[in-house]
């Protein structure tokens, strides 16, 4: 049965059903419904919740709990995610599975509280110091948030990486009908042979650590991480192709913007224009192959990348398409959101 749920609450419930038993948060708009929901819900399922003193503390609590083998997560919005970067870097080096939700708002600085996509670079290129990546998803609907969140801990466990769900204020606040999945049976999960459950001594003790003082040791670790990301790219890359087979103009967008772009595609198709949409669902790993394939289609003349930023994902679009075709950009920011008509107008003007 479908229920009408707000994006943030649906993510929270999906996290609980997907096995989250520890949440560490700090209030910031527009994601407050997630910690608010978790603050009572987790205790109903034998989990734990802490309102931390800061985002810095929250991400380090995630470090501790994830290191101790629990399915732990945090959520925040842009300024708070900036504060978490130190912890994320340590988590990546220590290879701790966890989930981080970023309901992005406009920046830089304190910015605004309206939807934005201006944290794309931070989410996909590193964000903190050192050579690392997360598995980053950009869901476009509440149901997709639920589906991705529900499996996020499995993915995190599989690769021992943090999973980031990159949403925006719209996605967090919008109410949509969702189908909630059944609870995962946590008793079926294997023991994590690297985690500090507290029972380790001697040879059997485990150490969660990101200090690798010997250059060779650190380099080997960097290579191990890189191999993990390569494997993640082979197995986890997700992309939606919409009406690209005969398209002359291909719109590219992720998250809620992709829904606006899809509406624009439908309007343009009604007018007889051959327009399609390519929507990355994983932002890291970026769906390079899908983009390259579409770029190689003879019918495709150009791309239009549209984002709620001054142009961030467009860099990956250009790299992925090898610049075989021109890539135009249409962006809004500051919390302003384009309408499908804005995109239709832009495409008609740019499209030859």
């Amino acid at each position, binding site marked *: 049965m479908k229920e009408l749920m707000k994006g943030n609450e649906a993510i929270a419930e999906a996290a609980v059903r997907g096995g989250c038993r520890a949440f560490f948060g700090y209030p910031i708009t527009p994601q407050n419904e997630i910690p608010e929901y978790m603050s009572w819900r987790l205790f109903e399922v034998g989990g734990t919740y*802490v309102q931390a*003193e800061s985002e810095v503390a*929250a991400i*380090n*609590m995630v470090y501790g709990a994830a290191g101790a083998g629990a399915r732990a997560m945090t959520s925040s919005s842009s300024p708070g995610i900036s504060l978490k970067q130190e*912890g994320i870097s340590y988590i990546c080096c220590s290879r701790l599975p966890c989930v981080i939700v970023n309901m992005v708002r406009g920046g830089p600085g304190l910015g605004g509280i309206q939807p934005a996509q201006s944290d794309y670079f931070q989410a996909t290129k590193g964000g903190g110091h050192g050579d690392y990546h997360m598995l980053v998803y950009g869901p476009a609907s509440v149901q997709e948030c639920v589906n991705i969140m529900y499996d996020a801990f499995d993915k995190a466990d599989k690769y021992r990486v943090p999973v980031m769900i990159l949403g925006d204020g719209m996605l967090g606040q919008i109410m949509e009908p969702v189908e909630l999945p059944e609870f995962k049976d946590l008793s079926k999960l294997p023991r994590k042979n690297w985690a*500090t459950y*507290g029972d380790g001594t001697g040879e059997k003790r485990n150490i*969660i650590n990101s200090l690798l003082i010997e250059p060779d040791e650190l380099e080997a670790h960097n290579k191990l991480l890189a191999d993990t990301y390569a494997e993640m790219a082979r197995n986890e890359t997700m992309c939606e192709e919409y009406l690209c087979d005969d398209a002359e103009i291909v719109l590219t967008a992720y998250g809620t913007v992709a829904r606006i772009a899809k509406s624009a595609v439908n309007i343009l198709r009604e007018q007889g224009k051959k327009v399609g949409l390519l929507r990355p669902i994983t932002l890291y790993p970026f769906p390079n192959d899908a983009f390259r394939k579409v770029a190689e289609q003879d019918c495709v003349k150009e791309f239009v990348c549209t984002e709620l930023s001054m142009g961030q994902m467009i860099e990956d679009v250009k790299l992925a398409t090898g610049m075989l075709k021109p890539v135009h950009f249409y962006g809004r920011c500051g919390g302003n959101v384009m309408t499908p008509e804005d995109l239709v107008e832009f495409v008609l003007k740019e499209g030859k």
Partner: protein
Amino acid sequence: MAVVYKKSKMLTDTPFHYCPGCTHGIAHKLVAEVLEEMGAEGNVVGVAPVGCAVFAYKYFNCDMQEAAHGRAPAVATGIKRVLPDKFVFAYQGDGDLASIGMAEIVHAATRGEKITVIFINNAIYGMTGGQMAPTTLEGQKATTCIYGRNPEVNGHPIKMCELLATLTGPSYIARGALTDPANVRKAKKMIKTAFEHQAQKKGFSFVELLSSCPTNWGMTTEQALEYVKTDMQKLYPLGVFKEV
């Protein structure tokens, strides 16, 4: 032949990397002995700091996590919340705990997290080469206050036990000194009481240990211990500041 002394089972065989005369080693030994005496073997997660004790994860014979600079109380909170029946302790220096990690220690304390924090106050940043610490004494020389700490410029030293004892969350707050056998014995008793509070889930427990850093103080071991006994103890009196 009767065995009159042996290394605690809660320490590994890895040799300490600490400088000669450094009291970090004594603090490790005390924590390990207390845990062993309490039968905690196989029931402990420790959290190492950033500072000279960064390699503590090599020395304690239990599961360990290495925290970012100052974040050990938050990391320990995360561990304890998901493993409420294990002993969880954090081991931190003064730069780690009283400067960059001030928010984390105060809030772990005020939440009454059932963890034990061992605080090594040597009034200096040891690992980075002798810079001023939040606990550096007025007039004490450091590489970032070469004429001695001047409160006009450098502010005043922080007294952590006194500060934390004002909070409701802690159940045990004490300060000892690692200067001589009598004080070391007292310090061990404090550490034991702290872990007992944790075992009984009474509240947050905290033991500050006045320590020496002969290397960065530019002193011999004897001079350094004398400095702890005289100058440091004057500013940081020993005793139990809170016990409920």
